[in-house]
């Protein structure tokens, strides 16, 4: 596990040293703030619980978008710049590389997401919402972001460069978000399957409402696991090419 920590630390230091990290944080916080002001609190009278639910709903969009931008470079950039050779010829197992990259990106995404906490705090100060609702909402955001990061990481491992990784990641994540629409026109049992795989509609809404469901947590963790295993296999396969 030492290698996972070394790679995680390097990933985090890269975000903090490159303008990309700050640009993503600034853009996401600006969009979160605008959406919160314009829709969550801006449309007539609402109960504070509804405002908080709307905040988590609106924040999930920028979180997914940020995940695509963070994930696109994880492997593809290393391949483009040739630094993947450094790690691939070191005694680092492929799963350690994947886990280190993923956890580094997730730490950055979680820190960025946590920076929006002033908005729920404002709702708490001026209304009646429980701390549990806030914590569950943030857990949902982080799980949603983790799933998107894992899918984006897989796309980054498959793609030859960052641009294609971003396009592929955006396409895959959009499909996973919109699966609920497909489930409406599909017939059983496909309808149930597509609805279940929808990463936002089916599994994120309970978190928005402050409901912690083990099933939804397991869904996100399973999706992350499958995507990370697939990424590891992609990296292993490249040695055979």
């Amino acid at each position, binding site marked *: 596990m*030492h*290698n996972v920590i*070394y*790679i995680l630390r*390097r990933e985090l*230091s*890269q975000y903090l*040293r*490159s303008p990309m990290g700050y640009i993503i944080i600034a853009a996401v916080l600006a969009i979160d703030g605008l959406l919160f002001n314009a829709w969550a609190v801006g449309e007539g009278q609402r109960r504070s619980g509804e405002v908080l639910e709307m905040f988590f709903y609106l924040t999930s969009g920028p979180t997914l978008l940020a995940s695509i931008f963070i994930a696109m470079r994880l492997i593809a950039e290393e391949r483009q*710049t*040739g*630094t*993947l*050779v*450094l*790690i*691939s*010829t*070191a*005694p*680092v*197992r492929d799963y350690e590389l994947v886990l280190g990259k993923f956890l580094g990106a997730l730490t950055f995404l979680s820190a960025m997401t946590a920076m929006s906490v002033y908005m729920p705090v404002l709702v708490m100060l001026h209304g009646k919402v429980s701390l549990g609702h806030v914590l569950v909402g943030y857990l949902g955001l982080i799980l949603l972001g983790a799933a998107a990061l894992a899918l984006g990481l897989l796309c980054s491992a498959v793609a030859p460069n960052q641009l294609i990784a971003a396009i592929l990641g955006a396409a895959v994540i959009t499909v996973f978000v919109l699966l609920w629409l497909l489930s409406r026109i599909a017939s059983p049992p496909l309808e149930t399957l597509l609805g279940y795989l929808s990463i936002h509609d089916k599994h994120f809404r309970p978190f928005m409402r402050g409901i912690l469901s083990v099933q939804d947590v397991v869904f996100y963790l399973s999706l992350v696991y499958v995507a990370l295993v697939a990424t590891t296999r992609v990296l292993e396969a490249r*040695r*055979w*090419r």
Partner: protein
Amino acid sequence: MIEAENVTKYYGPHAAVRDLSFKIAPGEVVGLLGRNGAGKTTTLKILSGLLLPTCGRVHIAGLDMQREPEAVRARIGFLPERPALYPEMTVAEFLVFAAHIKGLHGNVRAAVERVAASTDLCEVLDERIDTLSNGYQRRVAIAQAVVHEPGLILLDEPTSGLDPVQIVHMRKLILKLRRKHTVLVSSHILGEIHQLCDRIFVLEQGRIVGVGTEEELARQVSASMKLSVEVRGGRAALEAVLRQTKTVQHFAIDGEHDGRVEATLELAGDERAELARALVQADLGLLRFERVHLELENIFLKLTSGEAGASLVSAKETAA
């Protein structure tokens, strides 16, 4: 240190290397010589664990590359042709990171200071890599390859893209490594291989077409011996002696001036004593009598053009 058995690597239908089998002893400095596309980089990628061979086996330090890849990679330092560096890191941070992922967990700082001293990087340890010159970046790349004191160092075109001064520095640096490590260096620059290596593998179209020291390779491409002689006397007298001496296969008169005649000739075997006797007995004043060694360039051309064994008559070859 390295044992490769029938290593073959296909990229789709194209075989980049075929049936490579060789052994390299600990402490040897071996050159992989070949044209672009001959399979040098693929060979190094397989030995570094970056690629797995389509068939065949590689053992490094007695360990099977496919069964114990991490243990093997811990014993290797690899310098790719394009240096693998993180530009936003300082040299010290980069070397610490490299040492960590290569399995060095003890006194990493001391290891970094030691490798920085041996690669002349002490003065730039706190500078960002993207602010360094190309030559310094190459040194950082070499430093990352040796920071964990590997038994085997693989260098792929180590002087590629460097200016002449940087090339000299880089070669000195590689010569320093030979004392402690087994080194396999790939290059298409003949002078580099000549200066750095104890033994040479010549690759052509993915196959090894020659193995040995320069002298052994010269013998491989030609069993005959080439001599350059200079005598005082007439051209006709010299030609008469050379025609009468059975062991002389070919000869060419290179020049005649001030009563001196120079000739290059080829003997079937090492019959130098017989020829010298014949020249002296003919009362020709023997001024020079020396063996002409084939230059690496000519050996390489012979090996890669499939002319090995053909007779050599080239007035351009210079005397060693």
